[in-house]
């Protein structure tokens, strides 16, 4: 009792300490800010913008890159001899700060001029042009010439199936390294060498594809310049569309429709599904279909697999593997193949929606059209960089012909729309083509963390209890907390569910599962913070996570707008099973809709 009281006292003390406020002046404005904050954060709260470059933060995701290395955020602090980096200097009582005195402005310009002195000046054709933070900084500071001429870095380019590293453009901000190691715990990237030779690279400077990289692409999202970018395949897609011998089919992932609008000036969270379908038709795709259809199909397969494992488990089968892990996310699949090779039989064997769609298109749909699979080109529009890698995996090919030929990011789709001179904003809404464009609300929410498991629950509940679901919304499964858990009552049977987004969170959760510390029936994992809405192929958010939060709200709004909200109610899914697959997890679906995993871990082999 007494110790509990002391604990309370201690807690109240801590909260008092936390609340201690500091008085300071920034640019003549009297400010009160919490003790412990940096000048940068205090200024931002007060609405004063201090330019930054290396600094990167994901609000609410516990990620901060603050090496204090670029010196762009220097400010003048009265009574201090040298200029202070605002990101790495703590506020103090009575501090007087100037963020744009002549001394500061001159120093800031010199800093940027020095960064530019060894930066390739191919802005016109750079993949980050228009989204480059260095470019906008140079513009903001009015830099018109670069007075310093220095040596130029000449590092080799590293082309992986999904990500291109062009290290000559690297400004050593270390954002990618922090994201790769702290947020994702992938550990593929590290700063290596020293001085002018220093670069961010993989171990032994091998190609990315040979490292522990999962191709999640969060480094691409974080990179302020063109040092990291996705492999651009818009040209190949244009060529395919213009080839009269090919039937070109497009599928769009759920998260794309709530983010694409940002590229055309719409506020974050604007739903542009109808305009997107119209634009895809203008570009010239023969069929405008929806990955959401395949998401509904995924639920049929994965949900059946889950219920199968649960009922075996309840019947006392000790060999059954629980929890079942979702397998929609290719970054996550790469991650567990590398880091959890002892648990390869735990994830669902269901292919991702992208690959299910490809398999259905190149088998069922090609048969219906009476064409050979070689004459069909399947293009996917994904919020994702890792999907580019996924569609090139050998197990998703038949005689060398891939189920999905090209995977474009949301950004690449925006580029295509611009290249085709389509006035996106004035397009009238159009619908997807049938049958592979039909979907339910359950499929839409695949785009947000917790969505796949909620979609699975909506169907599994009805199949398991044989009763109609009264309330479709499982709000207890929603949210942006990194690791979440909830228990859903299946008519007297409690089903324990875990959710993680961001690979660092996934690692934490999986390690607990491996040690047997937690008991779940199913776990959903998404590699990117927020799920696919925060995917690395989405419009750049430059660390402003409130953009991802708005996309999150939009996803659930789109779900509400749907007439049907449970995957098994999708009439075209029913038709597909009737006509083609027979039943979920049946022989045909086992062949076309399921996959297997590989041990990609690194082992040291001891020679006798």
């Amino acid at each position: 009792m007494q110790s509990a009281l002391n604990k309370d006292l201690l807690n109240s003390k801590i909260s008092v300490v936390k609340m201690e406020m500091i008085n300071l002046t920034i640019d003549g404005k009297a400010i009160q800010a919490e003790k412990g904050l940096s000048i940068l954060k205090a200024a931002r709260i007060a609405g004063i913008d201090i330019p930054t470059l290396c600094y990167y933060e994901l609000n609410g995701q516990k990620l901060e890159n603050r090496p204090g290395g670029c010196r762009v955020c220097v400010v003048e602090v009265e009574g201090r001899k040298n200029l202070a980096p605002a990101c790495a200097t703590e506020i103090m009582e009575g501090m007087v700060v100037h963020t744009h005195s002549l001394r500061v402005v001159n120093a800031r310009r010199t800093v940027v001029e020095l960064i530019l002195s060894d930066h390739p000046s191919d802005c016109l054709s750079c993949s980050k042009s228009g989204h480059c933070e260095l470019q906008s900084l140079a513009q903001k500071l009015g830099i018109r010439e670069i007075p310093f001429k220095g040596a130029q870095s000449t590092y080799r380019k590293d082309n992986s199936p999904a990500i291109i590293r062009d290290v000559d453009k690297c400004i050593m901000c270390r954002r990618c390294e922090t994201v790769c190691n702290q947020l994702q715990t992938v550990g593929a990237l590290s700063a290596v060498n020293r001085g002018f030779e220093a670069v961010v690279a993989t171990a032994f400077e091998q190609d990315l594809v040979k490292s522990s990289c999962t191709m999640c692409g969060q480094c691409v999202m974080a990179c302020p310049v063109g040092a990291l970018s996705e492999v651009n395949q818009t040209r190949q897609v244009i060529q395919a569309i213009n080839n009269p011998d090919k039937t070109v089919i497009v599928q769009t992932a759920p998260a794309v429709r709530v983010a694409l609008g940002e590229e055309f000036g719409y506020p974050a969270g604007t739903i542009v599904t109808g305009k997107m379908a119209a634009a895809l038709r203008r570009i010239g795709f023969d069929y405008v279909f929806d990955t959401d259809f395949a998401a509904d199909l995924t639920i049929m397969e994965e949900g059946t697999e889950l219920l199968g494992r649960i009922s075996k488990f309840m019947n006392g089968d000790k060999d059954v593997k629980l929890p079942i892990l979702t397998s929609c996310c290719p970054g996550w699949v790469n991650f567990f193949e590398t880091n959890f090779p002892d648990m390869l039989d735990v994830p669902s064997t269901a292919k991702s929606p992208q690959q299910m769609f490809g398999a259905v298109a190149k088998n069922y749909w090609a048969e219906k059209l009476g064409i050979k699979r070689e004459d069909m080109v399947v293009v996917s529009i994904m919020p994702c960089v890792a999907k580019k890698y996924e569609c090139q995996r050998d197990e998703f090919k038949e005689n060398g012909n891939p189920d999905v030929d090209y995977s474009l990011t949301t950004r690449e789709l925006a580029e295509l729309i611009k290249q085709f001179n389509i006035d996106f904003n004035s397009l009238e809404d159009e619908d997807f083509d049938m049958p592979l464009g039909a979907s339910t609300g359950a499929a839409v929410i695949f785009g947000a963390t917790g969505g796949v498991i909620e979609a699975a629950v909506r169907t599994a509940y009805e199949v398991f209890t044989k009763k109609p679901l009264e309330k479709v919304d499982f709000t207890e499964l929603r949210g942006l907390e990194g690791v979440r858990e909830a228990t859903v009552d299946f008519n007297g049977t409690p089903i324990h569910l875990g959710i993680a987004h961001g690979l660092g969170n996934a690692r934490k959760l999986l390690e607990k599962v491996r040690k047997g510390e937690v008991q779940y029936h199913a776990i959903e994992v998404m590699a990117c913070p927020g799920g696919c809405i925060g995917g690395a192929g989405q419009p750049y958010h430059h660390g402003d996570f409130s953009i991802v939060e708005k996309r999150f709200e939009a996803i659930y709004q789109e779900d509400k707008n749907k007439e049907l909200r449970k995957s098994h109610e999708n009439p075209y899914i029913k038709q597909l099973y009737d006509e083609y697959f027979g039943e979920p997890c049946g022989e045909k679906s086992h062949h076309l809709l399921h996959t297997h995993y590989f041990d990609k871990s690194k082992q040291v082999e001891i020679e006798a």
Partner: protein
Amino acid sequence: MARVKLSESKAKKIKEICAAYGNKAGEAINVLHQVQGEFGYLPAEVQELIALELNVPVATIYGIVTFYSFFTMIPKGEHPISICMGTACYVRGAEKVLDEFKRQLGIGIGETTADGKFSLNCLRCVGACGLAPVAMIGEKVYGRLTPDMVKDILNEYK
């Protein structure tokens, strides 16, 4: 599964050293220091095992190895040559001596001759400034060097 090969005795030694430092990630520099002392250099497979033992990404280990000039991934020669580049040696012509070593051996700083006999490195001050410029071959110190002495010195080891 990617495999990295290592001999049993080497692996055992590396594991012992890591264990002596509690397999702590924070001890990586000490571990690397001692492992290099044992084998003379830190090849990729050795770094892989250290990374596994300390439970840190191998990229991080490689980052440390390439940052500190003390660490090397190239095996040292049978007779490691170190040229002092401290202030006293430098002003008395150490660079010319270094250039002559490079010319005679046909290798650069941090490299080893193809026959594995000599490797060349620079260091800062061996505490024999009175003898500047100074070079060391193995444990032996050579003082008051001039470029024309280099050939004869090397011949002692051939």
